[in-house]
């Protein structure tokens, strides 16, 4: 991306942030939708494995979203001279989505009963996940923005070499998201299996109390 993709005529070298910032933001928003889709699985079947999948998907998307927000802020400072622009719909709407999903974990933590926790969290994930594309459409309809519109629903306003690097970056970040999602899922499954084994082999009274947790057990 530093050597193959040509320098942007108007922004110069600072435009290279685009190849990390935009994929992080796209994958983050996609992750929130993915979490909502997985939550539908829980609401349909009642299987808590779906809730766990949804929880991890949203957790990962939140991390990627924070990355997208920070890299975007750095790009804004270099490009516009400000870390944040409050009258820019794209930035503010992304922040709203991020803050909305930031309430997901505290909401889970506030509910002690595991069944209720899973049910409420799934409903939240579905509703908030549906809000993401609606929010994108609303921002697309806004006219007063300074945020560059490189990708639209109809076309990509990029030269082919830049487009190729962007697609490679997007695929790379998506694969990273999927890998880390699978990694965390494996870790959480292993932990819950160990706890289940303790209960089965040693009896309930010998198992230490798990305590209140935001994560599905």
């Amino acid at each position: 991306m530093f050597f193959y993709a040509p320098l942007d005529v108007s922004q110069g070298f600072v435009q290279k942030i685009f190849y990390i910032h935009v994929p992080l933001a796209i994958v983050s928003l996609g992750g929130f939708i993915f979490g909502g889709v997985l939550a539908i699985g829980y609401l349909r079947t009642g299987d808590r494995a779906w809730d766990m999948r949804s929880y991890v998907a949203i957790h990962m998307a939140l991390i990627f979203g924070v990355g997208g927000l920070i890299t975007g802020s750095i790009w804004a400072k270099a490009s516009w001279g400000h870390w944040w622009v409050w009258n820019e719909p794209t930035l503010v709407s992304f922040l709203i989505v991020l803050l909305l999903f930031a309430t997901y974990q505290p909401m889970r933590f506030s509910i002690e009963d595991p069944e209720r926790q899973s049910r409420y969290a799934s409903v939240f994930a579905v509703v908030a996940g549906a809000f993401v594309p609606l929010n994108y459409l609303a921002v697309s309809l806004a006219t007063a923005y300074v945020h560059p519109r490189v990708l639209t629903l109809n076309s990509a306003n990029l030269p082919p070499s830049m487009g190729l690097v962007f697609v490679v970056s997007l695929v790379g970040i998506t694969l990273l998201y999927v890998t880390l999602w699978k990694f965390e899922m494996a870790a959480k499954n292993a932990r819950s299996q160990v706890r289940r084994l303790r209960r089965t082999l040693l009896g309930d009274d010998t198992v230490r109390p798990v305590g209140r947790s935001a994560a599905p057990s």
Partner: protein
Amino acid sequence: MSLLIASTPELPLGTSGKYVAAAYIVFVVLILVYVAIMAMRAQRLERELAELRRDVEEAKAAGSSPPDREHEAVL
């Protein structure tokens, strides 16, 4: 390696170089912090697993000893 570095075109870093570097460093640090947290959790899980194995072996030993002793007494 030095040949490879010498053959690569020079980047027009200018004043924007530090911003680009900062953005990519933020990304790498974020991933590293996440991996470090997951590594700590994996270590904790390993400890829990070892503890479980020890407890199961102890329970097994405690459960199997009386019949063994009985068997020995009969003999």
